């Protein structure tokens, strides 16, 4: 499908479009749909004046996850503790898209500090799935995916530490990309787990996904782990050009059976997944099944590392310099002041901070954290072997259907099947994409591809072809 964003920007350049039209329509849609689905934490009410006429995103409305800082626009991480936090600076990605003329129409709802898979840990209430309000849209980038899925915007930014772009994309039937670690600047992304956090695009078409990605992937001297863009303008060409069917014949898709035949996987979803595989095969793709039992350990390793980093990253939220305060420092000693203010975190965030602090403490560090780092290295080398010689890992985008919005999130059992395939990409730093391949009733079906480092060009090319095949 042709990129809607590109069509608009080209029309605008030719003088065939009104620069306010796209944003106007987005705000109208938002006004209608936000009350229904609770998509935005902060929604801009008015269209800014003097919209740009040129720029790669001139006049294009974009929704931004509320853990990416925006100068003078409230950024809450969906937490009480940052309820009134108005940043004094903008994230690098925000600067990039605004320089290209994009209009940020609002900050989207999410799991608190990006910790959650259902969007239900937000202090501002859960986002509902635009495909069926009884279902969760997936998390943690719930609002960004819902904003695209409900047709408010064509492109949005999310963040992905353990599947947070890809799961809501899969559950709301849109495209989501988790870039190679270091491809998109993290400067201005409020850290959850630094070694795995990546900002990623969410879009209504594969071309829009590629187009937004071509703009946001670049080297940033302010991010010490930034590597930048090795593709030149190749990604943008993929966004502009017709799908290239040859790509399917140049790759070897490998399906780890442990991730499909998971005890918690849903039979009907797995059946749909198999049907999608057959279709890809009939279009010339080479697909083989592999077995790697260690992949089932991915969530455990992931959680140890993510919680440890989170406990450290979230230590700064204490109400001293910014954010909300429960009591004033004059009233109590510093320890009490600190503890009272940090009571503003929700239960899932507290749980992760406490577990992380425990893991890093004396005596347990070697038992858990050191072991997890070792396991991470082992998994990485196993995956490298799988990907050698043009290999690409193929899994369901989600092996279960979207869970009900009132699902008891303390029951982690059903989420285990979701976690392993998604977290694998974060643990290894590899790029991964979720691609919608149809629906079963209101339930979206999707596949996930994980490629070698810096193989986004291949993943996005496959996404374009897949979109046509299943469109």
């Amino acid at each position: 499908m042709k990129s809607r964003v590109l069509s608009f920007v080209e029309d605008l350049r030719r003088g065939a479009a009104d620069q306010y039209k796209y944003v106007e329509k987005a705000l109208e849609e938002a006004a209608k749909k936000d009350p229904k689905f609770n998509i935005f934490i902060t929604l801009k009410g008015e269209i800014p004046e003097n919209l740009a006429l040129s720029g790669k995103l001139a006049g294009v409305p974009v929704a931004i996850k509320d853990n990416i800082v925006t100068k003078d626009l409230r950024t809450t991480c969906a937490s009480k503790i940052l309820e009134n936090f108005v940043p004094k600076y903008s994230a690098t990605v925000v600067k990039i898209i605004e320089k290209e003329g994009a209009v940020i129409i609002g900050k989207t709802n999410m799991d608190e500090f990006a910790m959650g898979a259902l969007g239900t840990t937000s202090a501002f209430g859960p986002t509902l799935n635009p495909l069926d309000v009884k279902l969760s849209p997936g998390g943690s980038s719930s609002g960004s995916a819902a904003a695209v899925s409900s047709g408010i915007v064509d492109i949005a930014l999310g963040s992905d530490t353990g599947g947070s772009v890809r799961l809501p994309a899969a559950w709301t039937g849109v495209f989501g990309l988790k870039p190679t670690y270091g491809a998109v600047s993290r400067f201005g992304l409020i850290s959850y787990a630094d070694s795995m956090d990546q900002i990623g695009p969410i879009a209504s078409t594969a071309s829009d996904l590629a187009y937004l990605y071509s703009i946001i992937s670049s080297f940033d001297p302010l991010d010490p782990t930034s590597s930048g863009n090795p593709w030149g303008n190749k990604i943008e060409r993929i966004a502009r050009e017709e799908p290239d069917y040859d790509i399917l014949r140049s790759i070897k898709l490998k399906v780890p059976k442990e991730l499909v035949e998971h005890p918690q996987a849903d039979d009907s979803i797995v059946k749909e997944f198999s049907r999608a595989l057959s279709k890809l095969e009939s279009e010339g793709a080479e697909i083989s099944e592999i077995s790697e039992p260690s992949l089932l350990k991915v969530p455990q390793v992931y959680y140890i590392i993510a919680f440890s980093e989170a406990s450290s990253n979230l230590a700064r939220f204490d109400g001293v310099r910014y954010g909300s305060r429960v009591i004033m420092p004059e009233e109590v000693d510093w320890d009490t002041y600190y503890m009272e203010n940090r009571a503003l975190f929700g239960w899932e965030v507290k749980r992760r901070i406490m577990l992380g602090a425990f893991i890093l403490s004396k005596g347990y560090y070697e038992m858990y954290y050191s072991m997890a780092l070792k396991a991470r290295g082992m998994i990485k080398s196993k995956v490298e072997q799988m990907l050698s010689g043009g290999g690409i890992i193929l899994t369901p985008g989600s092996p279960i259907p979207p869970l009900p919005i009132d699902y008891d999130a303390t029951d982690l059992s059903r989420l285990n099947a979701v976690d392993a395939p998604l977290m694998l990409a974060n643990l290894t730093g590899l790029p991964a994409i979720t691609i919608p391949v149809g629906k079963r009733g209101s339930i979206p079906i999707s596949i996930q591809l994980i490629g070698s480092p810096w193989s986004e060009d291949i993943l996005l090319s496959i996404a374009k072809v897949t979109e046509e095949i299943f469109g």
Partner: protein
Amino acid sequence: MSSDTDVKIGLEIHVQLTSLKTKLFCSCSSDYRDKPPNTNVCPVCLGLPGSLPVVNQKAIEKALRVAIALNMKIAEKISWARKHYFYPDLPKNYQITQYEGKGVTSIAKEGYLEYHVNGNVKTARIRRINLEEDPGKIVYHTGSMLTSKYSLIDYNRSGIALLEIVTEPDFSSPREVLAFLHELRTLLEYLDIADFKLEGSMRVDVNISLAGGSRVEVKNVGSLSDIEAAIIYEVTRQRSLAEKGVKVEMETRHWDQERKVTVGTRTKESEEDYRYFPDPNLPPVYISPNMLEDLSNTMPELPQTVRKKLVQVYGVSEYLSSVLVSEKKLAEYFEEVMKRTNIDGDRAASIIVNDLVGWVGEERMNQINKIVPASELAELLELLKRGTITIKIVKEAIPELVSGKRTRELLASKGWIGKVSGHELAEIVDTVLKENANAVTDALNNPKAIQHLVGKVMEATNKRADPKEAFELISKKLEEFKAKVRLQEDR
């Protein structure tokens, strides 16, 4: 207090890299002093959500130079750890530092530095050096934590690069500690690490233990005189505890600068758990052999080298040489002067150390070459060497040069040029003796009164006479008078 064999002292020295332009992890200025509170800050050093640290490569280079100068084993990669503790002056509630263990290492370890005490050479072992970020500063409006209802925090200092230098417990007296710290400071000045005239640029944690007792750490002592006082206080305290049979517990104490005592804190060090772990934001920096070789080849002259050079090349005495070298600017100034004059090095050093330094003042030593350009002093000394002017005039001229006068104009305007001696001086002496008959009578009875006549001669020659020569001429004349008187009496 002399060296007590049962006393062990180790130091943790924190030195701000004041010579860096920017902070350790952001581009804020490292010159934070005298700025309005919280104006020298950015999202990174305020630890604002979303900000990320980027390592200042110059800081690493400077730390490596110190490691080379301290003869240390340098790590192959520099990695960073987070040290967690909650305190309002620490914006992220963790400090980015280094750590020995958990996959992280210090920049360098196992070095040494030689220093002198009473003419004896001693060696202090250096355990390790680290780079880390300085926290902000808590300001109490009444000046005291106890009486202030609230505290204010100034983050201007937050993120300043600190070099932590940890020694082995190789000292047994305050005298050794001070001698070592002097030597270390001089070394760091030569390496262009820090300017120690800036307040707070060096803070020291002193670890003190007596045989049989546990180690007590006195935190954050700011000046050399306080370090001395803290050690004396703490050794006395521990000794009297031991005499009473009370066991000294391992603890951290604070130095109360006002009351000059150490004060216990409630926290026992063994209970603290900083939950160190490698900072996931900062990839390790690999130190290549090439880089180390480049640094070694471009090391500035170190104090020992300069000291030796001053003695061997310029003939300066050991003592004056150490005085000159103890201030990098002074040693450089001396060499600048010596390039322009043929005067004897020891004589020049003596005039600089004994006269010029006093007039310039310690606090302005860094600008000595601006206050009295080396060329001006060299000209003065060269005239002295040629005998054109006298030492008396040199001593009179130095304060004038310090106040901004130039040598040529000064000497001309004062009529100081041209030495009066020999026959010319003898005539003046004759005149002075004739005009001061009473003083001559005094001098004939009391040799000390000759100085008065010397003064008169100096006045008459506009200080262009050599006082020694004048003294000799007057003495000779007086002897002649005495001889005449004796002759008359004999008759």
